[in-house]
């Protein structure tokens, strides 16, 4: 029997205590569905989604502010695709466009330099949303803005740090036995940071890649640790994740951004969980501090419970009835990394 089959047999035949594993990152959630992982493992092992969808945790007031900019004369919002469809307390950027506003999707923040240089009379605002994975790209964008002396491009930031959110969950949510840590954010942060969490909370923290085999082997490692009473950090994605991460990227982030308390939609304030532009670069900020003081969710939407691993999307009363990707109620149904959207696509 090959090692993969043996891993599948072990996970499928698991009959011990029920185990709840949180996959922090939305890309893991998508891959778990794509590879049919749930059908291969014992029903005693439940996999729940975590807070790793940046659009889902961005406060509604931030989106409202983007919409204001999109509708403002002489202004244009630049953003990744996922932010276009999410609503704050009113319109989405897509709807703002229908009302005559201006919002453009970009594949890379660095493409904003070309746009801003080409239209000096337009004030561009980049929707800088994301986690540690994207933060160095925003730092590079600031560097390019300075180097090219661009005067008409600012960032509205809602950049989050994933580790404080995981720590928040460890402190406040009971019943999660282990974490499948995000592969891509760990490329920047390194996997070493999870060792302290494993020691402090006495739970396995395993960094995993995104192929089916990667996920199965990470789950096997978690189950093995739990069965033998161990709680360790283990890096099961060493081709890209190192102990210390990309230190050049981390230095660049630190040059332009500082850590601050931040608001997570549906959750509230999490201490030291955000990145803000440092004071010397405040001139490149489009007023981020004014758009982060609440965390409203539409009525009936349980995105917060989904993000915190309390329920699965299917447990929300609006899932697939009132709330679909075509008429999304909450942000978790909108984003490609949102658990509700991923569950919906894989359940039709």
């Amino acid at each position, binding site marked *: 029997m090959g090692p993969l089959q043996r891993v599948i047999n072990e996970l499928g035949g698991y009959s011990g205590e029920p185990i709840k594993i949180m996959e922090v990152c939305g890309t893991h959630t998508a891959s778990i569905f794509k590879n049919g992982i749930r059908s291969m493992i014992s029903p005693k092992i439940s996999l729940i989604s975590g807070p790793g969808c940046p659009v889902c945790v961005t406060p509604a007031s931030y989106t409202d502010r983007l919409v204001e900019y999109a509708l403002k004369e002489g202004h244009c919002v630049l953003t990744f695709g996922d932010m276009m469809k999410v609503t704050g307390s009113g319109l989405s950027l897509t709807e703002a466009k229908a009302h005559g506003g201006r919002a453009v999707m970009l594949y*890379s923040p660095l493409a904003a330099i070309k746009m801003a240089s080409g239209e000096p009379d337009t004030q561009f605002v980049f929707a800088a949303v994301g986690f540690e*994975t994207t933060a160095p790209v925003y730092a590079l964008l600031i560097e390019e803005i300075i180097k090219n002396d661009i005067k008409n491009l600012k960032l509205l930031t809602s950049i989050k740090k994933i580790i404080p959110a995981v720590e928040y969950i460890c402190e406040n949510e009971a019943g999660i036995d282990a974490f499948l840590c995000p592969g891509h954010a760990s490329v920047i942060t390194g996997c070493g940071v999870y060792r302290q969490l494993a020691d402090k909370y006495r739970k396995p923290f395993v960094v995993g890649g995104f192929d089916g085999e990667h996920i199965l082997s990470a789950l096997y490692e978690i189950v093995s640790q739990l069965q033998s009473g161990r709680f360790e950090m283990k890096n099961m994605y060493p081709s*890209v994740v190192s102990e210390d991460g990309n230190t050049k990227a981390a230095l660049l982030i630190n040059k332009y951004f500082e850590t601050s308390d931040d608001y997570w939609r549906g959750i509230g304030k999490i201490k030291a969980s955000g990145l803000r532009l440092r004071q010397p670069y405040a001139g490149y900020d489009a007023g981020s501090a004014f758009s982060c003081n609440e965390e409203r969710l539409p009525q009936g939407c349980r995105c917060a419970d989904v993000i915190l691993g309390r329920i699965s999307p299917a447990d929300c009363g609006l899932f697939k009835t009132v709330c679909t990707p075509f008429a999304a109620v909450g942000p978790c149904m909108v984003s490609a990394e949102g658990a509700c959207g991923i569950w919906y696509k894989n359940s039709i």
Partner: protein
Amino acid sequence: MAVPGRVVKLCGNTAVVNIMNNTCEVNISLVTPKVGDYVLVHAGCVLEVLKKDAAEELMWLFEELKEAADGTPSTRDK
């Protein structure tokens, strides 16, 4: 989301990378890849150079797991 690709050409602080048979120009300010390297690309930037290819990594993973299950130390250099 980040995706793997292979460096085809270098040009200053950008590289041409083949990502699933599409070529894209990406920024390499955060790393120093060589032509032929596998890299992880996100939002128009290379975040990291892959140290092993996917097949090699999966072999490593299963060897690790075998060790854990059998209690037999691997002969491979970690």
